[in-house]
């Protein structure tokens, strides 16, 4: 079975030394290669090759695996060990540097491009960007918080200033808003700007000795196992002082984590009101689905503060419209609040997303009865 997306348009890589290929190409493969023009899709190639679809697909796959063509958006299958070093450096020089960079960037994130759940609606938005770049922006933006500054810039932990600068400058050329001057960008504009701001922050932090040391320390702390006692009393704000900036240089993320820990500490002491206050603040800092859901669940289990529980479940639903859990908990909460019509509404929507969920079916059955 072929793993190739037939809607992609393969592109031939130039400067490859065919003589140095480990396994020589068949005439058929050569023929298919000669048809590749960068605009025809795999499906179209199949229909024009005259070789029939299965044979053409085989050819394309083998060309792709030997690194003679690339499929934009589909990550390369293997390092191009088959081509000689001279050939590969030539191909690097000829290749659009942006393409190469794109591939390098896309492999920096925990979720791979192929596994990434794209928001169709967003991808279909009509903007003045090509499809590959749209996917790239959505993909990178969504995972900005998942990598540290080193990972984001694609540099090693002991990299020097020049390496850093090179990484940052080439990424800047890709994401600086000036590249898209007065273009229609829709929801992509904000994403591109945020990506640029994040790489800038990364560069400025890592290229300053003092800031880098502080950041490394933060990272170190972050890697400590969960459950490490965190002083819940660590004041985010100096309450004794009137109006005072609080989160100064701390990353928003760190502030978020601290707020969550503070909330949890309050919960331990059964001070639910105080805990909820911290959680709410945390959520305004970062729209974290998991946190909202956890709080809603917690409250539901305690059976108290049902209104607050509904608010958190709603927040979770708002953050992730496709969250079955949020809808289910909302439904269950409305059952507890004895408002069956609301309960049915939310459970039915949950069911649409996960049609065979036994729990939801059971609830609905009960409600309808």
């Amino acid at each position, binding site marked *: 079975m072929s793993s190739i997306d037939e809607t992609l348009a393969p592109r031939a890589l130039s400067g490859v030394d065919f003589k140095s290929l480990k396994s020589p190409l068949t005439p058929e493969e050569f023929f298919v290669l000669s048809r590749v023009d960068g605009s025809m899709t795999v499906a179209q190639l199949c229909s024009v090759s005259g070789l029939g679809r299965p044979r053409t697909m085989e050819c394309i796959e083998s060309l792709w695996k030997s690194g003679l063509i690339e499929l934009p958006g589909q990550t390369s299958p293997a390092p191009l060990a088959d081509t000689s070093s001279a050939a590969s450096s030539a191909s690097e020089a000829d290749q659009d540097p942006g393409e190469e960079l794109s591939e390098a960037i896309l492999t920096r994130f925990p979720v791979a491009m192929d596994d990434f759940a794209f928001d169709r609606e967003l991808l279909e938005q009509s903007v003045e960007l090509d499809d590959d770049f749209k996917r790239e922006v959505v993909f990178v933006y969504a995972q900005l918080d998942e990598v540290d500054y080193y990972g984001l810039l694609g540099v090693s932990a002991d990299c020097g200033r020049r390496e850093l*600068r090179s990484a940052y*400058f080439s990424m*800047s050329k890709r994401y*600086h*808003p*000036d*590249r898209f001057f007065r273009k229609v960008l829709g929801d992509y504009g904000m994403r591109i700007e945020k990506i640029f701001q994040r790489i*800038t922050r990364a560069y400025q932090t890592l290229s300053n000795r003092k800031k880098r040391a502080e950041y490394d320390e933060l990272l170190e702390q972050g890697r400590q196992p969960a459950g490490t006692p965190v002083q819940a009393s660590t004041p985010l*704000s100096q*309450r004794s002082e009137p109006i005072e900036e609080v989160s100064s240089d701390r990353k928003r993320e760190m502030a978020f984590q601290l707020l969550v820990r503070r909330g949890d500490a309050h919960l331990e002491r059964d001070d639910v009101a105080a805990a909820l206050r911290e959680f709410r603040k945390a959520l305004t800092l970062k729209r974290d689905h998991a946190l909202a859901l956890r709080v809603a669940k917690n409250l539901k289990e305690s059976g108290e503060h049902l209104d607050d529980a509904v608010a958190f479940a709603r927040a979770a639903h708002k953050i992730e419209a496709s969250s079955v859990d949020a809808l289910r908990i909302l439904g269950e909460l409305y059952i507890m609040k004895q408002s069956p019509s609301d309960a049915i509404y939310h459970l039915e929507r949950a069911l649409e997303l996960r049609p065979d969920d036994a729990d939801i079916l059971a609830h609905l059955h009960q409600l309808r009865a």
Partner: protein
Amino acid sequence: MERIIGIDLGTTNSCVAIVEGGTPQVIPNKGGYKTTPSVVAITESGRRLVGQMAKRQAITNARHTVYASKRLIGRKWNSSEVRHCIETCPYEIVQGPHEDVRIKLRDKEYSLPEISSIVLQEMKLVAQEFLGEEPTKAVVTVPAYFNDNQRTATRDAGRIAGLDIVRIINEPTAAALAYGFGKNLDATVAIYDLGGGTFDISILDIHEGVFDVLSTAGDTFLGGEDFDARIIEHLAFEFAREHKVDLRKDEMALQRLRDAAEKAKIELSSMPETEISLPFIHSRDDGEALHLQTTLTRDAFEELVIDLVQRTIKICQATLQESGLEVDDIDDVILVGGMTRMPRIQAAVRDYFGKAPSKQVHPDEAVALGASVQGAALIEGSSDVLLLDVTPHSLGIMVHGGGFEVLIEANATIPTSHGHIFTTVRDNQTSVKIIVLQGESPNAEENEMLGEFVLSGLRRAPAGEVEVEVAFEISADGIVSVQARDLETGKEQSITVTATSGLTEEEIQNMIEENQDYLVELKRDEELERVRGQIRKSVRELEKLTERTISNGDGHLLEHLRERVTRSVEQARQALDSKDTARLNTTADEIQQVLQSVKAAAMGA
């Protein structure tokens, strides 16, 4: 594709450039000069003069000729800079309706953006002649140390002139673009920019076509004008000692002193001494004429201005420190601005940086060239040039007790954003006022205010319990927006900071209209003048022809036309004073017909 011109709107001179066939080039004006004086005048008849024309008549029309208006743009009426200008400028500076500054020329008060718009319009015309079409978009440069109010005022000037200023960039940055364009540099450079009115220093990291501004600083009130002022002071002082007359109180004399000072300063860049000769500079009440005749040596001049030179070096030191670099880290020092032709300045820069400054860019043209490079880079979206610019001033809000809390530090790469959390100050405080400021002083009052807004509906609680997040954002265009959010309710309030140029939107709209009216009127006047010329020419021709025919003894041939000729010439003379286009055109046609008839009759001979 529409092209974007680059304009260096300078304190003393302006310059326009465009990228043509991949190469940036300066567009010369009609006179063939690559720069145009940033001088605007209104003549007695109410006509506007710009550039060289305005500069030439400055002596006889000093009160209604504005120069160096860039020093006033975007400033508040009660600022010390404005006070200083009121004392030293021959034109009348008056208070505007919004704490702003206006200049009174003839019967009208002009805002500073209007004055600048007249210069911008002239530069636009220069480009238009060259391009063959009206340019509507421009990248305009300002001193790096301009604050937001000054930048907004410059943008407004563009709007009044019918130019969409797509981007404002800093002058030294622009010079760096001109310097590094197409060179594939890998270097850290310092741009020392001493122009007519302002001093800027910027440090940039240039690599693979990316121009990363590391830090920038300056003084918006330190430039060639100040060097001139020192010479004027010196000359006036010497003169007063000898004749007991203060020439600075005599507007005409002051204007002549000003010209002589500038000329002397320029000459001293290439010569060890210069003659200053101003005959009949003043006449006493008893009619005795006084002359100013003296010699100024380079050494004496340098002594007069050495503190100014040292001030620039101090700023260089501070900037370098700020960017965490050592003098040795600077690979190249680039001099920009006319003042850098002064040998003492070149020496000071060389001494401080420990290397001879590069002379690879033209000090008067580099800024406009760089602006055009940025314009082309924006519109093409190519990856040859990318400018990573910074915000020159710290941005923040006023906190309890009048302090200034910085949210975005000076020299942050834009676009950028940053948020902080603040707490209430009083018990049961239900609203907070966010006052947005720009500047480097820890005291809010000493910084420039950009705007304010209120976030209300906070929960009643003991002081310090309610938390509000304030987030600042600067877009790539340099537009600042501020958002305040109640962290409990999520309630938000935000504004786009429209820095005050001193003009309301309504005023700007009026000025745009007025300017368009003026242009229409100007065009009509030119048209009228053309028709008048035609009439005059026809009348002259008619008279000559009649005379010749009569002197040839063929006068009888014209006998039947005589009455008609006399009548139409009389009519034509009267019509010349008219401003009625239709009447002038009819008259022109009429006289033309008579001329034809007379020609035909004379031919009959």
